[in-house]
């Protein structure tokens, strides 16, 4: 249990997707104009990460890794398909995103309208593929750990985008130097938020 809590906290705060690895910056910058849309986008990312990381974990450990195909028979013990992992992961992600898109369109047309083009772009959101690749690199022991990691990373991303959206709503009423308005100030604020998040680094769990 402690291991799981450790992974969970670590993936939200210390290894935050946005502030420590800059993953998913494109949609982070583009969808963070209002809090409402950013909440929808963040929730979609949490959901997709929770589904794709465990799926890719199974794929990695039962199909792609060296010796993973041993359950098919002795002859397959030496097969190493890990060079295929990029293409397999992205295929899983693209189909899952299609699924989420269909679900949201059915149950919340308003959200579907406001997310617009960014819903299909979750497929090319680096945070999603990054989640799967980090899962592969860090060798989690079992599927529960991988799921908890996916959930934690998603929540970390959610916190980041909702935070920046709230700040951007306020900053519209401030006197920002004209050339810095919009994109520039968003970058600098994100940097400052990143410095704040770095204070979590000292925590030992």
């Amino acid at each position, binding site marked *: 249990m402690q291991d799981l809590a450790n992974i969970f906290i670590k993936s939200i705060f210390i290894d935050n997707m946005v502030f420590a690895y800059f993953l998913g*910056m494109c949609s982070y910058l583009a969808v963070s104009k209002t809090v409402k849309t950013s909440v929808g986008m963040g929730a979609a990312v949490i959901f997709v990460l929770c589904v794709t990381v465990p799926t890719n974990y199974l794929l990695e450990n039962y199909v792609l890794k060296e010796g993973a195909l041993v359950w098919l028979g002795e002859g397959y013990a030496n097969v190493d398909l890990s060079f295929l992992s990029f293409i397999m992961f992205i295929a899983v992600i*693209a189909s899952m995103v299609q699924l989420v898109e269909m679900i949201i369109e059915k149950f919340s047309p308003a959200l579907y309208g406001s997310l617009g083009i960014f819903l299909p772009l979750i497929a090319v959101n*680096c945070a999603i593929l990054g989640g799967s*690749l*980090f899962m592969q690199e860090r060798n989690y022991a079992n599927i529960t750990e991988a799921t908890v990691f996916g959930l934690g990373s998603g929540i970390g991303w959610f916190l980041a985008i909702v935070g920046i959206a709230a700040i951007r709503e306020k900053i519209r009423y401030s006197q920002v130097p004209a050339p810095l308005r919009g994109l520039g100030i968003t970058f*600098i604020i994100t940097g400052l938020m990143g410095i704040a998040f770095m204070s979590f680094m000292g925590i030992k769990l």
Partner: protein
Amino acid sequence: MSETKEALFSKKNRKLISDPLSDNNPVTIQVLGICSALAITVQLKAAFVMAISAGVVMCVANVIVSLMRNFIPSRIRIIVQLVVIAALVILVDQVLKAFVYDVSKQLSVFVGLIITNCIIMGRLEAFALANKPWKSFLDGLGNAFGYGWILIAVAFFRELLGAGTLFGYPVLEKLGLYDLGYENNGMMILPPMALVTVGVIIWIQRWKNRDLIES
């Protein structure tokens, strides 16, 4: 038939290369491909390798998709594009592992993340699907340079101010700055400063070119 007579480097084609360098820069204006631009800019060498890898993928993917543009049904185009990009990235990844293993280790997941680099998808969607191969190639090349120079500029400042080196060569030490009491700014190596550096580049660019200012 007038189009076939157009010179290989006509004015319009040259514009395709020069525009993304400044006025239509993929990173600072179109806001694409930020993720990797920030993450691997601690050292010049890694940034350099990354810029070349992403550039190669961008040019080749642009040409391939442009060749196939009339055969791809629009409903499944995203998946087709992803497959093309992913296949190219696997090639690049294997080449990097074979020839520059230490850099490939350093880039870790970010080589794989070229697949989801929004510049590549963005250019395929916006340009290659509607244009001929040669033009798409030029567009890819232009955007690769636009992306590359931002990457290298950010890495230059971060490595110089953060570690006092350039390509691993101790420039500041040779200049004798440390004897004068200069100290490296360790902050520059940490992730948040990458964001601030890009923010400042955007600031300077928009201050030079007032048309780009957002209302």
